[in-house]
């Protein structure tokens, strides 16, 4: 397992907001095809980590490397172009666009023709548009959304919106996928289906996935490796079994008995 090519290497990343040290000396290593979990109590800094990785925030210190390329400080669209795609904790779809257009938009980052070619409708641009459409429909089929392709994204039921966000992130052609609480607000049945879907994405595309999730059952079931965050610091890294029995993790989640 350790020989697998490293996709994402994060070391010594810190970020403060005023006096609040949101993330301190954060490190993480994500290998190709790995499905890793990032957990921690509320306010531990998990989403901040995602925002740092995807360029929403610039880290104060540290090093983030995607496939060997340093990406800290780059703008989010550049980081996405280099192959790091994400979903959002509070769903951020393009509500008034159709389901299909949401996925098609995500292919924009791979588009090679210019805006002028689009306006002139050159053969190259039309071919590429057709290619985008095919690719988007393929993804929608895989995510079981094809029959809703022409509906407005905001009219989809909640679970479908979550799935669409993952499909959209996948459409950008990423090397690694960051999922921010994809199971939030889902019922147990939907969670089981989601777990299956995440696994399928990993297995069928060989996708590397970093998953933030509050549902311990889900995380423990599907993740190979888990990083635990508390007060902005990594307190434990290991397999689900190791993490679950780690005294620091238990203390973070359950509190410490006064001695």
């Amino acid at each position, binding site marked *: 397992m350790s020989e697998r090519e490293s996709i994402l290497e994060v070391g010594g990343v810190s970020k403060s907001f005023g006096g609040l040290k949101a993330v301190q000396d954060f490190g993480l290593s994500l290998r190709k095809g790995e499905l890793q979990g990032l957990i921690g109590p509320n306010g531990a800094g998990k989403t901040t980590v995602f925002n740092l990785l995807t360029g*929403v925030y610039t880290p104060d210190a540290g090093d983030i490397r995607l496939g060997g390329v340093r990406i800290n400080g780059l703008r989010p669209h550049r980081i996405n172009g280099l192959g790091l795609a994400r979903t959002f904790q509070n769903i951020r779809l393009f509500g008034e*666009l159709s389901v299909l257009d949401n996925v098609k938009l995500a292919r924009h980052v791979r588009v090679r023709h210019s805006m002028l070619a689009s*306006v002139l409708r050159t053969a190259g641009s039309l071919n590429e548009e057709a290619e985008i459409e095919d690719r988007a429909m393929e993804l929608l089929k895989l995510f079981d959304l094809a029959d809703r392709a022409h509906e407005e994204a905001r009219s989809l039921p909640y679970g479908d919106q979550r799935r669409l966000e993952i499909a959209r992130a996948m459409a950008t052609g990423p090397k690694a996928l960051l999922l921010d609480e994809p199971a939030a607000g889902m019922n147990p049945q939907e969670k089981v289906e989601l777990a299956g879907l995440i696994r399928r994405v990993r297995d069928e595309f060989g996708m590397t996935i970093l998953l933030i999730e509050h549902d311990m059952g889900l995380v423990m079931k599907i993740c190979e490796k888990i990083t635990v965050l508390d007060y902005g610091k990594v307190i434990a890294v290991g397999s689900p079994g190791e993490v679950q029995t780690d005294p620091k993790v238990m203390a973070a989640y359950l509190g410490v008995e006064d001695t």
Partner: protein
Amino acid sequence: MPLLGVVGIALLMQFVLKPMLGEGGSFYAKLLLDIGINAMLAVSLTMVNGFTGQFSIGHAAFMAVGAYTAAVLTYYGSAYLVGGETFADAGVQGGLVSTMLTERVRDDGLATAWITARDLLFAGSLVAGGLVAAVFGWVVGLPSLRLKGDYLAIVTLGFGEVVRVIIQSQTADVLYTVEEIKEAPVLGVAQMFALKTDEWVAPLWLRAGGSLGFSGLPFYTSLFWVFLWCGLTLVVAYRLKNSTYGRAFLSIREDEIASEAMGVNTTRYKVRAFVLAAFFAGVAGGLFAHTSGVQLNAGELGFVKSFDIIIMVVLGGLGSISGAALAAVIVTLLPEALRDPPSLLFPTGPNGGASFFPWSLIVLGLVVAGVCWRAERKVRAVLLLLGTVLAWEALRYGARKAQVDLSDYRNVMYALALILMMILRPRGLLGVGEIWDRKRPHRSVPTATGKTGPGATL
């Protein structure tokens, strides 16, 4: 192919429709020019306000920049490039493509040519006006990298006023004779660096009439040029909206953070939208400046004009190209229609004039049809239509009894009509969609959440 279509339509307008309107048709021809120019302005603003969701309220400034650039070029440029008289001398005109006259006044052969050097100069000036406006668009687009919503609106409003005031504060002198024109500095760059303020002579490019307005411009704007450019604007906007770049624009409007996270360089596209919109507004300005009966004056291209354009965009539905064009038609015709309002029972007004009757009836039909368009219940739509007609007839009856000329109140009625339309269709006539989208059945199918698609906006 569509380019040929656009040229074809423009030629038909100029050489088939215009002669059909005949001698007395110049009023309708002028309305058609206004419609075309307004449609260009509305559709170009749609690219910024509708596509990328940036709220710009300084669009008339781009129009002013384009108008003055084109005006200076055709007016002074002709003295250099084409030679001969300035346009203050009566009778100097372009070829058949650039005239709204039904009868040619000159008999020296120049006027009857299809296309002359002057028409080419005019075409070039329009493009130059568009390009200069586009540069301004780029400059205004830059703050949009940092500002959002109301803040950007204030910047664009300020920009519009700055442009207006700068133009108005220039010298009011316009040079008339060719000798004068050839003596004056063209750009005045050398003069500027000499810093001899006492010897300052305003260069030609600043001699555009200042606060008095630029008088003596030739009337080159014809149905051909207006509908050529209007068609081009529509084709570009439509193709853009339905391309991957259009989706990138729309995604910024929907959710800028998500758009950026999905790999869209939001800054670049916001600026591009501004540049493109400014280009077409600049061309529209050039067309406006050379319209018969218009005296170019920056005072008329201030924020009131900007709001007129915004009314069209919002009325049509933010993001809808056909909506913006339709709204441009309505907003242009409505005040005219209300001059001599139509009535089934009282076809003539108190003054007896009913020349506008057939036109205005069509307009009223369009307005009501637009309002009722997507009403879910057909019965309600019919009742609304009947109610409108009855209320209107009652108003006419009352006005006649009271010896009131309704056309005195046309601006009030115009405003009321706008308010009514926004109450009935808060998201504009067509929402974000296009007229032809409505034919797709799946767009308004009820979904699992119980809400319906875009059809449910009423």
